[in-house]
């Protein structure tokens, strides 16, 4: 429930930022039109009508405002466009500062007023830009959103294995085989016909373990499972095995769903999944294919530790391992 509430709250905040971005866009539009249509009035009002240079500067600033307006009103990336406004504000404040230093009396009073207004607008722009950027960052990647506020991550991957579906199914159905190719799994112990106990290497320095049960299965075709009890990272998965058109191979489709907790634990879990969680699942399936087709996980000198995905890249130099490196790798 609390997760749903926080998601709704996030969405409301995002809407608010977007609305403010749109309002700033219309403000830019109005300002730009005025500066282009009545530059004389603008120059008089702001107290810079005594300088020849302002004759050139005001319409240019007006044109720039129209660019901001176009960006803010049409682009979905309001964050980036809000930042262009911040840059524009900085330019305006600099110009106003220079003007202030050379003016006195009534003109100076008018300039101070305009400068104050621009400073206020700058603060609003800055706030909008920062918030819009943050919202964009947290909402573009589902995994990253999970990392910040808690949430679920769904991963899918597929491969084709040149073995009949019955054989591929049987290997997966013996869940104790999964750690041979899945990077994060240390061990799976079968505890009953449909129940099992899983150990994963830890994102927080100690191992995580949980119970799981198979909730649905069709021999040779499909296995559906989910974690049970108080799992640190509740998860569920489906794997389907479909005969490929070549009549020899099997297409394997995997869907995994992780409920990533919030807070520090959630961050650690998300980091553990890496920048590209899909890549890791793809690599897991690649190793599954290697094991099914060639009998084991293929090792090279640059990537000698088989299933340890996170040790594959960056790689070590492609030269044979010393005895001590080999010994270290044996239990890696």
């Amino acid at each position: 429930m609390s997760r749903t509430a926080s998601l709704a709250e996030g969405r409301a905040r995002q809407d608010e930022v977007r609305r403010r971005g749109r309002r700033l866009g219309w403000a830019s539009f109005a300002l730009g039109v005025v500066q282009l249509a009545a530059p004389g009035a603008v120059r008089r009002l702001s107290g810079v009508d005594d300088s020849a240079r302002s004759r050139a500067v005001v319409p240019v600033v007006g044109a720039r405002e129209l660019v901001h307006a176009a960006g803010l009103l049409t682009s979905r990336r309001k964050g980036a466009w809000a930042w262009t406004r911040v840059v524009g504000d900085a330019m305006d404040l600099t110009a106003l500062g220079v003007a202030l230093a050379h003016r006195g009396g009534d003109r100076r009073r008018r300039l101070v007023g305009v400068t104050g207004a621009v400073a206020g607008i700058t603060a609003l722009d800055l706030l909008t830009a920062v918030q819009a950027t943050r919202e964009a960052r947290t909402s573009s990647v589902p995994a990253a959103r999970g990392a910040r506020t808690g949430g679920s991550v769904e991963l899918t991957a597929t491969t084709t294995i040149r073995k009949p579906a019955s054989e591929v199914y049987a290997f997966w159905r013996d869940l104790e085989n999964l750690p041979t190719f899945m990077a994060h799994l240390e061990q799976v112990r079968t505890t009953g016909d449909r129940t099992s106990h899983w150990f994963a290497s830890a994102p927080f320095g100690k191992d995580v373990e949980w119970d799981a049960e198979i909730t649905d299965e069709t021999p040779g075709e499909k296995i559906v499972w989910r974690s049970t009890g108080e799992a640190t990272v509740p998860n569920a998965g489906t794997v389907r095995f479909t005969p490929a058109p070549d009549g020899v191979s099997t297409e394997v489709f995997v869907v995994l769903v992780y409920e990533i907790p919030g807070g520090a634990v959630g961050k650690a879990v998300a980091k553990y999944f890496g920048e590209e969680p899909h890549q890791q699942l793809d690599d897991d399936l690649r190793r599954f294919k290697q094991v099914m087709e060639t009998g084991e996980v293929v090792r090279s000198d640059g990537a000698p530790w088989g299933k340890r995905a996170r040790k594959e890249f960056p790689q070590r130099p492609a030269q044979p391992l010393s005895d001590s490196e080999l010994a270290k790798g044996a239990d890696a």
Partner: protein
Amino acid sequence: MRANTWAGRNKVEVRDVPDPKILNSRDAIVRITSTAICGSDLHLVDGYVPTMQDGDVIGHEFMGEVVEVGPGVGPDKLRVGDRVVVPFPIACGACAACAAELYSCCENSNPNAGIAEKMFGHPVAGIFGYSHLTGGFAGGQAQYARVPFADVNPLRIESDLTDEQVLFLSDILPTGYMGAEMCDIKPSDVVAVWGAGPVGQFAMDSARLLGAAQVIAIDKEPYRLELAERAGHTPVNFEEVDVRSRLLELTGGRGPDKCIDAVGLEATHGSAHVAAYDRIKQAVRSETERPHALRQAIMSCRSGGVVSVIGVYGGLLDKFPAGAWMNRSLTLRTGQCHVQRYMKPLLEHIERGDIDPTRIITHTMSLEEAERGFDIFKNKQDNCEKVVLKP
């Protein structure tokens, strides 16, 4: 053991590295008796193939004697003491690509397939000593090498042919042959081959073996063209004549029926302007190739002909003449060589004397001299065509 390693751009270094050990059950360890420097090694040394690391053992053309086999290699497949030539692509023998004899596209032999997939769309096979993109396997310019899937890859040599006669079965002879085979050569065909380096020479010999009426060699090095001429091929020096005009002259205005690009991504060009254009684009990394040879092959080929590409390309090229390719019904065929497919039949050709692979060897030196070997091969000094190293 001693091994030749990549030590940064334009630098190789013979160093002490650990001896290889069995890592997978179907591995074998081979004591290398002969190994060669390949033109594609130059792309590594020149820095055009990404994902190289300081200390990578390079080399993918090698042969030797089996000194250890893993528990998964059946004695009927390979035994200690066997004399073997090792193909450069590592194939598992079990995946769909291997089943289709597309060994250089093996789906299982590249443990770093994720990177290759990003680069090429789909992964490619592991290759010995050829960057981490192709798996990060230590290469064969060394005293020993670990050979994965040793029950499917190495070719046993049971006759008393010399190393020099069979060594090139590991790469350049099958690569040249595949270049010619992809041309579907007919007896009336004129075949033009860009590049008279080792692979080009073997593509020419293979085209002749497959029945071509005439074979034309295109290069700029007089000694390479002479080598081709001595083998019965027609030389064209692109620094002296306009290639397309000369080819039209030699073919009654039709153009060669079949064209083979045996040059790849570091082509040189007769025109200084075109050369400068591509060199600059390559230097700022806005294209990875200098595809002069490929462009010229497409522009010169007769309508309806075949352009067969066996020169190595790494990434993206620019100014590809797609209009000529499409409007003139050209067929473009290519691939890293599926060496395992050709080793046995080519061994028989060597035994019968149809092909003499030793004709291209100009230098034999010790492994310790690898650095000098790279230097003279790369800079085409001392009329260097092919360097064989003896560990």
